[in-house]
């Protein structure tokens, strides 16, 4: 080979290696926080303090034991026994069982959304859980399922065809015939909702293969008992239980990687079930008013607007406040009282001549069975005017000889008055206001109390205060009621009101129990629009209409205006699908999110260098010096003024964490994910992955403030042991429909249950120094088109339902982090929604912490950096490029207004972080270098070496191929 050819080849190799190395170096730097985290550098070497276990290996092992024990406990207390004809608990000699259902070998431990990775060596599947629980299982069938190659998904129920059960497999049933334990599963995850219809029937209905399986079990005649276990959060249609002679049914949701023994303990009676549903189990999951408008809807446009990225989809919440049980129970009351043509067939199951609660609902919200039998009596409800709270006293009696835990659920029926009807205020017939869980000894009696803020039973009226809007309390009679779920509580209220014709969720006649009801009359002469005119969290702030433009009627042409569901006229207003919506000029204009213009009076950045930023203080202030400094203290301005534009751009950019700011000695910090447990690894002991707990609906289904708090505490401890000071979790969007795919990250269909559960969790996490970016605020109730979908809803539903859990997270829960959602609220992208972030969160809720957006960097049109910052976004999630954009924008435009917003964002971020475990772990005088990590220096060195080598090869090629050739030519 000629020398020049060789050097040409080597030049190619050199250029290839150098370009590759350079690209990978950029990649590594863009993901520096991942690498730092993996190398244990994510908190600049800080060991986070604040653990009750002691931050060492010994403490770690104690924590691991507690976490794994808790996984079992939460399933024991969160799993819901829906049906039991006496088959459970199993007798001591019923231990030869067959685990039926392909999904028994393919458990959905949690959803596919952000969360922990499993530790396979410690994971507990059903096989292990049953064997450890003393069972002999039909191993041949279980192994066959494992090999089936079929798994549940968003478009498949994951059940094998009946032909799977060969004669050989059927022959194995005889030896394991004490109980047929059948597992059905339904799957939800991030990004995509499940198909509404699979094999010609609702996805959440029993599929043909599942039906055939139950039929085969029945036909075999070999099994003494049939127990169905429901795996997954999405509530299945359960009208098949009687048809197929199912003796008992247990829902446990997504059990996490280590919790399944809890479900087995319930079957054996080692644990007494005490969970209650967090969602209504409907017989026809497609029938609810919310389901009428759920999914994929596309605007029609005139012509073809140039830029429509993330601006073509919409969804309309025509059901208003009638979400979940608030619909089913309210309609039931109106049927019983013959009001508002509630009995019409609108929304009724096909073939029914009138709407009937028992035909629509298989298990109500709040329902759950126990092996104990309890009676409850509402002794009194007293109002404390000084605290503006009610306290209910309840006596719980266990009438059998098995000790257990009983949930006391307190509901209220507020009056639905003529004022409400005239002013368009909707009222649910029953709504949860509080709960507690008590230990009740065998044959014992305990008295307990439930206290709640009266504010929680106020209704939002957009016409109050001369159409300014506000919360109101109606004049009239209020009914407080307790019961095993919303339906029983409502029946108790109806009994008190003297109604007849009551029936339970099975359609069985009932009389209700007036001993479970207390009346309250606030003695108002008229509707009270004044008491909650001011925010309960800041008396200087007026609560008034802020979401008029989230209502489709604000934007739509006259012929496209909609009517929200009202109990005044169930038939006439039962939602129809909004299948076409024309994007008129106002809508097209409103969809654009890149609106920021530099104000004319914006100060100059350059001219103010050294005055408003880059200020050289005589006594520099470090990050840690700001610990415990109140938010309003002017010292914050002085502290922030030291920082340069480059410094200010560091902390707004999250790349799975925030880099260090050397100027003020702020260490780097990671931001972990997720709602189902931490996506992180421990830094102690065996350094395993953090714990995958049962998902949030199961935690919430415990209906136990203590359990929810303990979950938050253990989660917070795990964060300390894995070096995490901030996490994107938990989620608290309302589970608006049964098909919301991300339900496992959320809590409940009910705003108040979510309000309590999320605030319990966050308060506990914060007690361990963990900042939780509670997500996704707000109205992110479907995954379909989640990025940019225009979500239309009326202000009453936004206030009372969709925002309430977030309000609880930031107020009662003392949260210092929140994540906005991908969708638009009305037409406004949540992360540019100034009204939501500035007026509601920071104004009405007096929130001082940071706000992060949901990870997205797709479109300037949809999510412009400047508009997001000005709107109130402080941190750009997984979007390191925003820092560069911001710096370039401010430099280019010399926009002091944006600089001020940037300074405010930094203040919010630092304020939150200083109140995290990181703030509690730094000692004054600690130095944190914002410079290069050792691995970055190494990469630079390698780049230089290979760059020089490539250049050398090219030079040699030029010399041998051109210079020498020319020289030889000259010589000739």
């Amino acid at each position, binding site marked *: 080979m000629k020398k020049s050819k060789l050097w040409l080849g080597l030049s190619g190799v050199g*250029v290839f290696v150098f370009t590759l190395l350079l690209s990978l170096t*950029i990649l590594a730097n863009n993901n520096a926080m*991942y690498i730092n985290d993996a190398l244990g550098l994510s908190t600049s070497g800080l060991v986070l303090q604040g653990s009750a276990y002691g931050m060492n290996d010994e403490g770690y092992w104690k924590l691991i034991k507690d976490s794994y024990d808790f996984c079992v406990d939460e399933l024991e207390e969160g799993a819901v026994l829906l049906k039991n004809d006496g088959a459970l608990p199993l007798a001591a000699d019923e231990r030869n069982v067959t685990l039926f259902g392909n999904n028994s070998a393919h458990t959905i431990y949690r959803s596919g959304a952000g969360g922990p990775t499993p530790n396979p060596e410690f994971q507990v599947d059903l096989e292990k859980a049953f064997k450890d629980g003393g069972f002999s299982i039909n191993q041949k069938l279980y192994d066959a399922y494992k090999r089936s190659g079929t798994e549940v998904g968003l478009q498949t129920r994951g059940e094998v065809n009946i032909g799977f059960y060969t004669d050989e497999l059927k022959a194995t049933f005889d030896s394991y015939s004490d109980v047929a334990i059948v597992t059905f599963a339904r799957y939800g995850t991030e990004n995509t909702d499940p198909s509404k219809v699979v094999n010609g029937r609702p996805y959440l209905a029993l599929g043909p293969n599942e039906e055939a399986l139950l039929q085969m079990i029945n036909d075999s005649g070999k099994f003494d008992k049939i127990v169905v276990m429901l795996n997954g959060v999405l509530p299945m249609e359960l009208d098949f239980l009687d048809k197929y002679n199912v003796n008992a049914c247990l829902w446990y949701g997504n059990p996490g990687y280590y919790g399944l023994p809890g479900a087995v303990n319930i079957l054996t009676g080692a644990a007494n079930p005490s969970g209650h549903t967090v969602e209504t189990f409907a017989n026809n999951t497609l029938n609810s008013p919310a389901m009428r408008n759920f999914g994929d809807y596309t605007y029609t446009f005139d012509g073809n607007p140039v830029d429509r990225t993330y601006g073509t989809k919409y969804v309309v919440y025509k059901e208003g406040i009638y979400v979940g049980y608030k619909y089913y129970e309210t309609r039931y009351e109106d049927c019983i009282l013959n009001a508002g043509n509630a009995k019409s067939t609108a929304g009724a199951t096909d073939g029914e001549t009138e709407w009937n609660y028992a035909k629509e609902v298989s298990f109500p919200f709040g329902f759950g069975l126990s092996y104990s039998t309890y009676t409850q009596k509402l002794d009194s409800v007293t109002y404390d005017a000084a605290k503006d709270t009610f306290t209910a006293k309840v006596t719980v009696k266990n009438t059998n000889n098995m000790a257990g835990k009983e949930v006391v659920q307190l509901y209220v029926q507020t009056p639905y008055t003529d004022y409400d009807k005239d002013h368009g205020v909707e009222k649910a017939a029953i709504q949860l206001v509080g709960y507690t869980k008590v230990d009740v000894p065998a044959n014992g009696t305990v008295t307990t109390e439930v206290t709640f803020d009266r504010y929680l039973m106020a209704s939002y009226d957009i016409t109050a205060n001369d159409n300014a809007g506000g919360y109101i309390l109606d004049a009239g009679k209020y009914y407080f009621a307790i019961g095993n779920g919303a339906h029983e509580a409502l029946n108790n209220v109806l009994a008190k009101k003297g109604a007849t014709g009551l029936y339970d969720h099975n359609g069985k006649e009932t009389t209700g129990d007036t001993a479970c009801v207390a009346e309250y009359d606030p003695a108002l002469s008229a509707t009270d629009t004044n008491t909650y005119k001011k925010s309960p969290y800041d008396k200087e702030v007026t609560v008034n209409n802020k979401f008029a433009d989230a209502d489709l009627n604000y934007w739509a042409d006259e012929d496209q205006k909609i009517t929200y569901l009202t109990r005044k006229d169930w038939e006439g207003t039962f939602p129809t699908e909004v299948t076409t919506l024309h994007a008129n000029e106002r809508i097209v204009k409103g969809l654009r999110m890149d609106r920021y213009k530099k104000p004319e009076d914006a100060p100059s950045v350059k001219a103010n260098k050294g005055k408003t930023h880059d200020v050289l203080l005589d006594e520099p202030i470090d990050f840690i010096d700001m610990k415990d400094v109140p938010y309003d203290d002017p010292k914050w301005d002085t502290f922030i003024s030291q920082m340069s534009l480059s410094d200010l751009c560091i902390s707004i950019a999250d790349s799975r964490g925030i880099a260090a700011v050397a100027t003020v000695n702020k260490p780097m910090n990671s931001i972990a994910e997720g709602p189902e447990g931490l*996506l992180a690894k421990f830094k102690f002991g065996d350094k395993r992955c953090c714990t995958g707990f049962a998902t949030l609906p199961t935690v919430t289904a415990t209906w136990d403030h203590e359990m929810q708090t303990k979950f938050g505490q253990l989660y917070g401890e795990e964060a300390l042991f894995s070096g995490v000071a901030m996490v994107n979790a938990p989620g608290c969007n309302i589970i608006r429909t049964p098909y919301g795919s991300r339900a496992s990250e959320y809590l409940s269909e009910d705003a108040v249950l979510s309000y309590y559960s999320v605030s319990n969790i966050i308060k506990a996490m914060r007690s361990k120094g963990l900042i939780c970016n509670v997500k996704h605020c707000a109205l992110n109730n479907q995954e379909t088109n989640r990025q940019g979908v225009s979500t239309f809803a009326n202000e009453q539903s936004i206030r009372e339902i969709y925002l309430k859990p977030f309000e609880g997270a930031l107020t009662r829960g003392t949260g210092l982090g929140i994540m906005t959602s991908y969708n638009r609220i009305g037409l406004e992208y949540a992360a540019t929604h100034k009204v939501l972030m500035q007026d509601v969160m920071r104004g009405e809720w007096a929130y001082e912490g940071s706000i992060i957006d949901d990870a*997205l960097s*797709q479109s300037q049109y949809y999510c412009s950096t400047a508009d997001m910052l000005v709107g109130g976004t402080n941190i750009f999630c997984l979007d390191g490029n925003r820092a560069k954009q911001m710096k370039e924008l401010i430099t280019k435009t010399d926009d002091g207004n944006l600089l001020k917003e940037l300074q405010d964002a930094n203040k919010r971020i630092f304020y939150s972080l200083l109140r995290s475990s990181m703030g509690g772990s730094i000692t004054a005088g600690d130095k944190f270098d914002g410079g290069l990590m050792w691995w970055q220096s190494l990469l630079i060195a390698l780049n230089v070496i290979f760059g020089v080598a490539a250049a050398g090869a090219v030079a040699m090629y030029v010399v041998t191929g051109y210079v020498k050739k020319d020289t030889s030519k000259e010589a000739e």
Partner: protein
Amino acid sequence: MNVKELIKNKGLGYWLTCGASLLALVTAIIVFATSETALPNTVSNGWVIGLVLLIGVAVQVAVTFLPIRFASVISVICYTAAFGVVANKIPNAVADYFNKVAYTGGNFGMCMFYAVAVLAVALIALVACFFAQTKDGKTII
């Protein structure tokens, strides 16, 4: 210009980069058609991958008519840079796949296809550097 003669005179180095460019063109078309959904939510401008590949293709078209000796090295730069762009856009999809989550969306399979296809293109161009662009060794520079 006698195209037939021009083609007849092409060396193995040319044909290798030509094959690489054909694969690059197909990959670029697939990228333009699929990158919006195939890449994770957390990245923008996925079409840049296709654009960089097309620059390589354009170079190939140019050297077909204006042969230069070190054309393969230019192809290596273009296609390796394209691979670098891919590598910078897909890590979240890869992380999601191995963490068994769908946190940032995207399609892991498609992302892997981009990576493998573009790397193959770059490697073929690299091999071409060891072979001549023309049979008679005549080039404009």
